């Protein structure tokens, strides 16, 4: 084809690698997402916490600076010790922001395509249903990565640089905890978000569904625990399951200080996590189709 010749011509040029095509979806989605000044401002705000944490790490290792402001290093060590709790706290703050970010951009991801009957257009091209879903999830996964494990690992490296190679080697498990803890949150948020988006067409309802699921699951979990005096109600609570997983990764059992009879065993939390992801995948396979077949 040519603008001037107005003739039909096949394309014979190079093609992009097949594995990379799902990334086209987030690339174009970001045009819409960052067109909103509100979202751009919120996203910038998500980097305040990593910045503050970096400053704290810096202060820990800068005697001159602290002396100038009459702060003793020992006080600072007591108030903000740089240990697994420090990094877990960082991840907890960023997890809340990740949740808000998901509520802002997650709901329309698939529902818009369903409402506009766009799925046949995606799926009639060399793009599988799995790649389509991964592409949609990537919109969230990339943004949440940018505010969770990426700055978390940078903070870890910064601390290692200032503390010395010994600290880096001895605390390598913290780097692993940051990475795995972040990705478990990312997977949960992204998968849950696209699942709700695939089943609920209205954006507001989908956003409310996301928040509601978090609140209701937490309330139900605590209610079961309280009424039946058991620890197993926690398996229904999204927040308790994720907290238990993080605690195990950061080697801080029951960091929330729950009564010991309420603490959920770590394997149970992982099993619930896996079951929840499987349920989301099952629901997605039911809904993400080029055309719904009326049987």
């Amino acid at each position, binding site marked *: 084809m040519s603008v001037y010749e107005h003739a039909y011509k096949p394309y014979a040029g190079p093609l992009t690698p097949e594995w990379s095509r799902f990334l086209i979806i987030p690339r174009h989605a970001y045009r819409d997402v960052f067109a909103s000044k509100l979202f751009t401002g919120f996203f910038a705000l998500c980097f305040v916490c990593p910045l503050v944490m970096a400053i704290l790490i810096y202060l820990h290792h800068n005697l001159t600076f602290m002396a100038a402001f009459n702060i003793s290093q020992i006080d600072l060590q007591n108030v903000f010790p740089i240990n697994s709790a420090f990094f877990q706290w960082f991840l907890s703050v960023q997890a809340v922001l990740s949740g808000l970010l998901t509520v802002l951009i997650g709901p329309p991801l698939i529902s*818009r395509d369903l409402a506009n009957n*766009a799925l046949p257009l995606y799926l009639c091209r060399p793009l599988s249903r799995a790649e389509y879903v991964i592409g949609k999830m990537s919109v969230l996964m990339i943004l949440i990565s940018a505010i969770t494990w990426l700055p978390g690992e940078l903070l870890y490296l910064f601390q290692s640089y200032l503390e010395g190679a010994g600290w880096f080697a001895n605390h390598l498990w913290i780097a692993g905890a940051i990475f795995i803890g972040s990705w478990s949150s990312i997977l949960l948020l992204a998968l849950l978000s696209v699942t709700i988006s695939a089943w609920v067409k209205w954006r507001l309802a989908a956003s409310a569904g996301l928040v509601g699921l978090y609140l209701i699951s937490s309330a139900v979990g605590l209610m079961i625990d309280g009424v039946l005096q058991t620890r197993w109600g926690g398996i229904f609570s999204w927040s308790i399951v994720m907290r238990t997983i993080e605690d195990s990764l950061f080697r801080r059992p029951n960091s929330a200080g729950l009564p010991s009879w309420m603490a959920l065993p770590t394997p149970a939390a992982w099993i619930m996590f896996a079951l929840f992801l499987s349920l989301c995948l099952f629901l997605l396979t039911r809904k993400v189709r080029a055309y719904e077949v009326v049987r």
Partner: protein
Amino acid sequence: MENASDITDQPLASVAVLPDAPAERAAEPVISLDGLSVQFGGRPILKELNGELRGRAIGLLGPNGAGKTTLIHTLLGFHAPSSGTAHIFGRDIRVEAKQIRTLIGYMPERDSFISNMSCVHFVRIMAELSGLPEEAALERAHEALFYVGLGEARYRKLGTYSLGMKQLAKLAQAVVHGPRLIFLDEPTNGLDPPARARMLDLIRHIRDSGKAHILLSSHLLRDVEECCEEILIIKNGRIAVYCNLEEERKSNRKFLELETRGEREAFVDAIGELGCEYALTSERRLKLVLQEEAQIRDLYRIAGEHSVQIRRLNYKRDSLEDIFLKAMEEGNGVAHAGGPRT
């Protein structure tokens, strides 16, 4: 990066689109159906379809619910066959669906868009998803929109388009990556006469370019008749009729019906001497079978020599409507000779 020509040329060189080369056209079918059956919830929708389609433009006809759209969706890989399979350019839809979709463009029947974006952006994304690099995708998106006649409106949001413009935008996204086979599902649906004529012009233009095959599904017989050279009529999930319209037209060209004025005895004798069989059907009308070597101009010449006026000359031909209606009246599984195996 792989190359588009790598995909299209390697095992398919022998079936490259050469519409006017019968030997090559005969070499490999565009679509071959091998006992293709599709069921939804145990209910058979397509029943053991067999056949080979080779034309540049293939019309897919059938009453509502016959299985036309299901056939297209199955060829695109949206539905898995319950038994049998189909091949597109020699590739099995069961095992090479992704590669096949690189070679196909699809214009769906219903409105299908990605919301809240300009048309050029939409077509560009579709090109990128087909594997074109960013720059090539953008360039071809502009070209495709100029090609279909939306050049001036390409920066407008799709939501502001009229129905006719939306149909053209759907066509643009179907051809932007230069596919070798284009599925058009009811492309003239809801169009006013000028828009319909424009759409059919574009379809004929693509067909005549010889660079792509077209499978046109429509319930408008006129559209299919104007654009297609082969037709496949589906009824109750089975192939009711396959026919090559070109050959049908050629064979129909021999049968003529004339209305004359003047003394015609000498005229009909002269026609008989020309080797044509004839029958007088009324005082002024006659039917005749034109021989291979005789031309219509010979009839006018003879009429002039015998002072006979030819007031009307009609081809006695089966229109597509006749063929369609016959197929609907006849039982299932009836195919014309030389058509698909049933």
